[in-house]
């Protein structure tokens, strides 16, 4: 122990710091033993790696193992003692972490002793399995990191290629949410898996350490030759490349929703779920409209395959809010919206998601994002004068003018305007493009930008650029936006005139955010903290307000940043209007 004492002490200190941070986070978010589970998963792995490195790889590499072997003690006993020291050290570490977690979480939650013991059993069993693997990897000497990489690749393979969630993977299931909550007994199957892994790794460790007078472990402990290093680096790079390719080319099964009412689409599947509010007739009508858009887009852009589209009406959502489900293991576009969802917005959203998926999200790049948003709407509305007029009216309500700058900084523009008005502004741009260069040329541009097949790095490097496509069509951003802005100004939006102002007010213990609104009786503030890399608009909290003033229920400490947005539903427009959007920083 003395030989490795200071390293073990450093591991304990790092683990204590890590656990403290995890407990702080868990204290904010709840989750009983979630800090312990995360601690064992990450810091436990690192500690096991360091311990095995010291007790096995380093002793063989530094030949102090030879010093031990010439003493009157059997090699098997040396090996068993080291294994036991490592297991005891990691077991002690996990037990300390468990006690700390228990004490910390019991301040705010009721945790029974039997629940706590379940968490201890699950994490200890996992740690034992982890240690047996680490010890075996340590005996592999210079190839120990290769063993860890193999484990990492195997885990990635399980999760991403074989679609086995890690919470269901052998042994890893011990760190699932069920373990973090410690509500159910530890699965006997998981314990059996640990026993099998410990036996298997223990056997390999013993073979490496004892067979041929331990010559295998001693030989493996030597430094890598340049040729071996090159081979390992090449093998790792090839593995990464192959796994990425496999993931890219993996054919996900199509999403299926048997209860949905199907529409007749020639190129794919379009289904709308029937509910109490949306009868079969209405569902079919909506489905037919969407299927028409999908079919015509697929034909025009020469798409071979179109993912299935399903629409799920759901109570409680605003008519203009549409959410997309995140499908991890299947292919498809599943959207949910209010039963009285604005159909024009829904159809545009389906096109948007379709084109986004086709380009693997490359259509969201800043230089073409406005074209994507605009084309999605234009495609659904191009042959419907009523619909086009409505989108133009919404575009006219924008408080941000169309200009080259506002189009090329589309993220900022969208943040200022909100989804509905920003999309309308993009429509105005594309509609003007179609009027200027012709529909045929506009469709050709869309084909160049959005229908390119997935063909790897070369396609990305040589992909079409909007600036070049506009130049080929005889126009440019400057003249196009100027023309669109002129048209926009000719339209009378007929909106309610309302204004809003957001400001920080210094108070006791920090700053408060105050919103002042005139011209709107009911309005809302959407707000969310901004991290160092956060872009913004996801997961915003909402405060509904009436009258002229509201204070957000939060206090900002110095340096804290916040995105705050004031919106109201304009009854005259039928579209939410964003009155103000600011990023605030408390000073």
């Amino acid at each position: 122990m003395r030989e490795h004492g200071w390293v073990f002490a450093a591991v304990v200190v790092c683990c204590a710091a890590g656990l403290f941070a995890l407990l702080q986070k868990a204290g904010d978010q709840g989750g009983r033993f979630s800090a312990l589970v995360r601690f064992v998963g990450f810091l436990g792995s690192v500690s096991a790696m360091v311990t095995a490195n010291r007790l096995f790889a380093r002793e063989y590499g530094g030949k102090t193992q030879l010093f031990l072997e010439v003493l009157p003690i059997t090699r098997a006993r040396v090996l068993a003692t080291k294994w036991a020291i490592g297991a005891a050290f990691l077991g002690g570490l996990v037990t300390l972490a468990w006690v700390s977690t228990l004490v910390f979480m019991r301040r705010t939650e009721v945790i029974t002793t039997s629940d706590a013991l379940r968490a201890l059993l699950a994490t200890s069993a996992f740690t034992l399995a982890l240690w047996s693997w680490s010890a075996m990897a340590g005996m592999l000497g210079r190839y120990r990191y290769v063993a860890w990489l193999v484990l990492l690749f195997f885990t990635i393979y399980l999760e991403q290629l074989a679609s086995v969630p890690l919470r269901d993977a052998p042994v890893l299931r011990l760190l699932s949410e069920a373990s973090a909550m410690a509500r159910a007994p530890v699965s006997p199957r998981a314990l059996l898996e640990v026993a099998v892994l410990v036996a298997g790794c223990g056997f390999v460790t013993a073979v490496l350490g004892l067979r041929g007078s331990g010559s295998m472990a001693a030989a493996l402990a030597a430094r890598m030759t340049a040729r071996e290093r090159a081979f390992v680096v090449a093998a790792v790079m090839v593995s990464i490349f192959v796994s990425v390719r496999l993931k890219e080319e993996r054919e996900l099964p199509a999403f299926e929703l048997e209860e949905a009412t199907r529409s007749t689409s020639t190129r794919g599947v379009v289904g709308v779920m029937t509910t109490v509010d949306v009868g079969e007739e209405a569902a079919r009508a909506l489905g037919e409209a969407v299927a028409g858009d999908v079919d015509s887009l697929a034909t025009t852009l020469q798409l071979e395959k179109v993912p299935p589209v399903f629409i799920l009406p759901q109570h409680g959502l605003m008519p203009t809010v549409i959410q997309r489900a995140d499908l991890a293991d299947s292919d498809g576009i599943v959207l949910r919206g209010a039963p009285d969802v604005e159909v024009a917005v829904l159809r545009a959203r389906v096109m948007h998601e379709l084109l986004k998926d086709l380009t693997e999200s490359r259509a969201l790049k800043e230089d073409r994002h406005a074209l994507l948003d605009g084309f999605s709407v234009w495609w659904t509305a191009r042959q419907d004068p009523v619909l086009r007029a409505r989108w133009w009216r919404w575009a006219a309500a924008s408080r941000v003018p169309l200009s080259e700058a506002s189009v090329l900084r589309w993220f900022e523009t969208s943040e200022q305007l909100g989804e509905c008005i920003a999309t309308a502004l993009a429509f105005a741009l594309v509609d003007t493009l179609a009027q200027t260069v012709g529909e045929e040329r506009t469709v050709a541009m869309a084909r160049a930008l959005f229908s390119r097949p997935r063909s790897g790095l070369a396609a990305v490097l040589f992909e079409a650029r909007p600036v070049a496509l506009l130049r080929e069509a005889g126009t440019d951003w400057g003249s196009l936006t100027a023309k669109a802005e002129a048209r926009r100004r000719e339209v009378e939006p007929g909106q309610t005139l309302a204004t809003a102002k957001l400001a920080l007010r210094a108070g006791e213990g920090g700053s408060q955010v105050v919103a002042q609104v005139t011209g709107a009786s009911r309005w809302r503030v959407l707000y969310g903290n901004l991290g160092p890399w956060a872009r913004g608009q996801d997961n915003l909290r909402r405060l509904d307000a009436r009258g002229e003033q509201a204070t957000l229920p939060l206090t900002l400490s110095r340096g804290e940043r916040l995105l705050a947005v004031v919106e109201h539903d304009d009854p005259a427009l039928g579209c939410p209007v964003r009155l103000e959007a600011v990023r605030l920083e408390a000073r």
Partner: protein
Amino acid sequence: MSDLALQLSGLTLRFGRVAALDGLSLSVRQGQLYGFLGRNGAGKTTTMRILMGVLSAQEGTVEVLGERVKKVSVSLKQRIGYVSQDQYFYPWMTARQLGRFVQAFYPTWDEAEFTRLLTVLDIPPERRSVELSGGTRTKLALALALAPRPPLLLLDEPTSGLDPVARYEFNALVSSMVKERGTTAFFSSHLVDEVEGIATHVGLIDHGRLQVEADTATLLASARKVVSAPPFEPGPGFTRVRDDVWTAAPEAWAQAGWPEGVTVEPVSLHDLFLAYARTRSPA
């Protein structure tokens, strides 16, 4: 009970295609200081490691201190003192701490003897092993090996990195242990002159086989250099080792008549070592 401290018979160990030992047989009697000579890679260290149980022979038998063993047991190891070519102590341990650590493995450990050896060999007891010179580390290894007062000492080229003074001190201590306590020492080296000065018996190993084994005086008495021009061949009873080095029974040398122009000269262990060790090399 046999008076053999060591007996190896037909010992063979191959690492892949390379035969480190190729049927090695030798015997060492108790109380002998046996010089085990051979070139680098001849199989000396492999033999030592088999005797210490670090390696196992694939064929052949090993007898240590009268016990025939397949593999050297813990109890047997407790009766062997071992000094290797390089010392791999834990770097943070002082000589005193190493003594305490090693002591736990030997029931016969003599702490007073260990302290005496540290003084005699001029080893600073409280200095960490990483701070000791190579020579002092080797002397410390000898002190650790001798403190349990083992009946058998295995010394694997212990002096190859030492300066002349340290080498002299080391050899003197080993010789005195053999003479005063009756300890058997099996001393491998390629420094022939050093072995000639202390060894009572000598064995020459080459390519994993023992070439010759005898007590030092008899071995030197049975070999001569026969110098003549043109080359002269002494006849039956004489065996050429290489070039002009011949061996025969000591009485054969005394009784032989030599024609004019032929001179017969005594050989040193160094000459004999060169003759045997170079036998398979091109002349």
